[in-house]
């Protein structure tokens, strides 16, 4: 979860570049820091919504079916993004807290950030369930609560790690490296990202 958060954070299109741009626009490092909370919040919301939906689905759908569904979505979405790269049309250069939160939410959602995290959360809550099963004193209700608790902790970890990397990248580029870096170092992470989505889907399907 931590690694995934860092991976999401390092992608320029996921937030740090926007924070740098706003810092430059305002001519101060405060602009960079001010951009981080809404960008983090939007990202957490995007991942959280997917986790919540999956958590609720878990209550009514057998785990095997859920896993297969998630895996198919990942595979399909990843393959689609390998050949077609669309962006949500939202945002501009004059943005406030709400705009940035919405933008980050849309960017993370459109890139399938939540779905990328999902297989790991399902596996973990699966483990939690296994522990539950081993201790018969726990009720089913408690299991759901435990699962929600695990989900929240994972979401928190993911977001923290995402924010740390986003903030660090923004600061280093703003303070030291400068934007010329974009011309050479901006590897096509979206392509890699799509591949990761597809591979994760395939692995979950086959496992």
């Amino acid at each position, binding site marked *: 979860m931590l690694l995934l958060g860092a991976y999401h954070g390092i992608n320029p299109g996921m937030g740090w570049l926007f924070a740098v741009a706003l810092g430059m626009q305002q001519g101060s490092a405060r602009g960079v820091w001010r951009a981080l909370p809404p960008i983090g919040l939007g990202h957490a919301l995007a991942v959280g919504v997917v986790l919540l939906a999956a958590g609720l689905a878990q209550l009514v759908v057998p785990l095997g079916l859920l896993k297969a569904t998630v895996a198919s979505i990942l595979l399909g979405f990843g393959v689609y993004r390998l050949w077609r790269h669309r962006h949500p049309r939202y945002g501009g*250069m004059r943005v406030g807290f709400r705009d940035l939160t919405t933008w980050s939410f849309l960017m993370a959602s459109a890139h399938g950030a939540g779905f990328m995290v999902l297989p790991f959360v399902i596996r973990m809550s699966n483990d939690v369930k296994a522990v539950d099963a081993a201790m018969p004193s726990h009720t089913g209700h408690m299991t759901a609560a435990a699962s929600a608790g695990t989900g929240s902790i994972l979401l928190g970890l993911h977001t923290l790690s995402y924010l740390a990397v986003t903030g660090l990248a923004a600061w280093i580029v703003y303070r030291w490296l400068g934007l*010329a870096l974009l011309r050479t170092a901006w590897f096509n992470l979206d392509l890699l990202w799509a591949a990761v989505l597809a591979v994760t889907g395939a692995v979950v399907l086959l496992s």
Partner: protein
Amino acid sequence: MPLLKPDPTFYPSPKMAMQSPPEKLSYLALINSKKDDRPDAIAVVDLDPDSASYGKLVGSVDMTKPGDELHHFGWNACSSCLCPYAPHPHMERRYLIVPGINTSRIHVLDTKPDPKNPKVVKVIEPEVLAERTGYAAPHTVHCGPDGIYVSALGAPSGDGPGGTLVMDPETFEIKGKWEIDRGPQQLAYDVWWHLGLDTMVTSTWGTPNMVKAGVNPELLLAGKYGNKLHFWNLRKRRHVQQLELGAEQQMALELRPAHDPAKAYGFLGVVLSLKDLSSSIWVWYREDGKNGSNGKWGIKKIIEIPATPADPAKLPPLLQGFKAEPPLVTDINLSLDDRYLYVSCWGSGEFIQYDVSDPFNPKKSSSIRLGGIVNRSVHPAKPKQALNGGPQMVEISRDGKRVYFSNGLYTPWDDQFYPDGVRGWVAKVDVTEKGMKIDSKFFLEVEGMRTHQMRLEGGDASSDSFCYS
């Protein structure tokens, strides 16, 4: 297939774009003014001074049908792909979007694998354009952060309103009309923006019916051509403000916003004042001096170029009654450092460089002459051959050291001001701290075709927009 690294012709800021290598070739719109079956073309000009074919045509591709009247074509992608809110840096600057204002047909050309032999890869027919947008006569193309923006002069009936339409930058499908609320805007011409301010600006010429048969003296004297500037919220796609230049001003054409996204001003060229046939340059600016997302815009005339008294015998019939040669500023262009504004006087043949470091106090820093209604000034490459037409479409290299210009305006208008028929040529000046100097080795003449917009390889001073200072 997207690239793995950003397109090397994309630059985060105009300052960085000025470090780019010199262009080696250019794409040039050629217009067939004869009413025969030959279509218009996009030609390729060799700009490499070390090449044997320097200043000559080295390739060309015909459009699919005759009569397009090609105007301000542009790239599918440019530096705006690096903007932080919609980054897609792995697009390629590869396709030229070429609009025909007379037929409303749009051609898409692929400049790869051989940049000297572009190929037509898609044609958008006028019916499709009309059905999807309600517009006709597409005129100016700009690559935006989230799509390709195209201005259009009017509706399929030939009347107004004109406006802006959006094209998908990957599939080149026409997505639709851009405006959600056009307010009082009716006439259209140029479109550009201040990306740093989420603000779009549009200018005003005339509807297709007002321009396609030449300048209409009745409409002109009644002040019916465009004399307004429109400001829009780029995100909300809504009209926010209209600026009026005054009833005597006619044809508010070229828009050149400062390239630096932190600067909130830009320049507008106006062709004609009914009062004295002068042309003028205006600067628009934020009235409160702040560069935030709100605030009113103002506009001020900063340059007036007067008409010159002339012997009626040397003037075309349209102008004989006035006994004067109007300068006719039909195009302007701003260097990437926002320092020099180049102004084409298509009527008098003068080509002027202004230092606009202080946009409110421009200084005329250099000037040359080629062609012109009265003077017919010669090019040093052919000192005995009187030239017609005058400096018109201007393009500046990214480093600001070379400026190219062609001499064709718009076929039906060319013939009114140069009744002997404009013979197509392209010239170039070199720019140093001392000013402009005509390159005597570069003089391209095109037999039987008129020359219009040029696009330089890798981008130029009117192809890209930037989100970082």
